């Protein structure tokens, strides 16, 4: 599994992401600058890390979504290559058209930074096959704009095609109420593209890979990827 992490001005989770990928795949990911036009040869997985690309100017992910490298990322996705976007990376995927919908300001208008339970909704994907079906995992979230919104037809399509990857829930796996940290439609925390080769999610699995700092529930995603290609 050869991975590339795209670095935008204002990205800040690329180091954490690289550690998580290195731990699971035993390969050092290549850091790729946003103004480059090509991905390294033989790249299996492209990762858009979290952060505040371009200071969240205009709309979160809007300017990064149109960066030079994104044409190469789109072409990689069209070939069936794997793309993962976390937090700001999810916002960039939505802005670049690789995933449908949009991430709006949290419904309560506050930035949320805390631990959060998720329910794994789909295990038949390159990103999630190491998790158990409906497994409850505990990861962290840190965002001000994670309120997933799309028109009803898009929501119906995502639900009907099994493209909701993760949902926010409480420790018992119960959905709704205060378990939804940002007001997302249908408690959506992460979604797949049509072919399930692109995943965007707001929570940060890359920060939950070491028992020393909060737990290892994020490892399932990286272990899934490591054995996917």
């Amino acid at each position: 599994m050869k991975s590339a992490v795209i670095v935008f001005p204002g990205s800040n989770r690329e180091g954490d992401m690289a550690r998580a990928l290195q731990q699971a795949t035993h390969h050092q990911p290549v850091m790729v600058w946003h103004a480059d036009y090509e991905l390294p040869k033989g790249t299996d997985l492209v990762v858009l890390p979290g952060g505040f690309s371009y200071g969240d100017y205009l709309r979160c992910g809007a300017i990064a979504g149109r960066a030079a490298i994104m044409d190469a990322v789109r072409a990689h996705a069209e070939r069936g290559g794997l793309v993962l976007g976390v937090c700001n990376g999810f916002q960039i995927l939505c802005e670049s058209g690789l995933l449908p919908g949009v991430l709006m300001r949290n419904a309560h208008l506050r930035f949320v930074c805390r631990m959060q339970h998720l329910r794994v909704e789909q295990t038949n994907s390159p990103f999630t096959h190491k998790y158990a079906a409906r497994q409850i995992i505990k990861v962290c979230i840190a965002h001000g704009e994670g309120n997933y919104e799309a028109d009803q037809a898009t929501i119906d399509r995502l639900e009907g095609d099994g493209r909701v990857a993760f949902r926010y829930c409480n420790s018992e796996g119960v959905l709704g109420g205060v378990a939804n940290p940002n007001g997302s439609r249908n408690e959506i925390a992460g979604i797949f593209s049509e072919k399930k080769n692109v995943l965007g999610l707001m929570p940060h699995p890359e920060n939950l890979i070491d028992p020393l700092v909060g737990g290892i529930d994020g490892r399932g995603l990286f272990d899934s990827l490591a054995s996917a290609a």
Partner: protein
Amino acid sequence: MKARVVVTLKNGVLDPQGKAIEGALTSLGVSDIASVRQGKVFDIEISAQDSTQAQQKLITACEKLLANTVIENYSIEI
């Protein structure tokens, strides 16, 4: 040529920021505020042969970057 592009949320899209502003205005004693929706204004200087060409360039700008047409509408004044 000077132009102004106004980007607003589509009807039916929740606007938590507008709601908060609406609440703040009411608590400041500004009466009769029925609702507030927040948008963006871009003042743009553009070189073009005529306003039709400028309009076309600005439509491209809106579609490509200035507006997220999933949730936003835009209007152009030249």
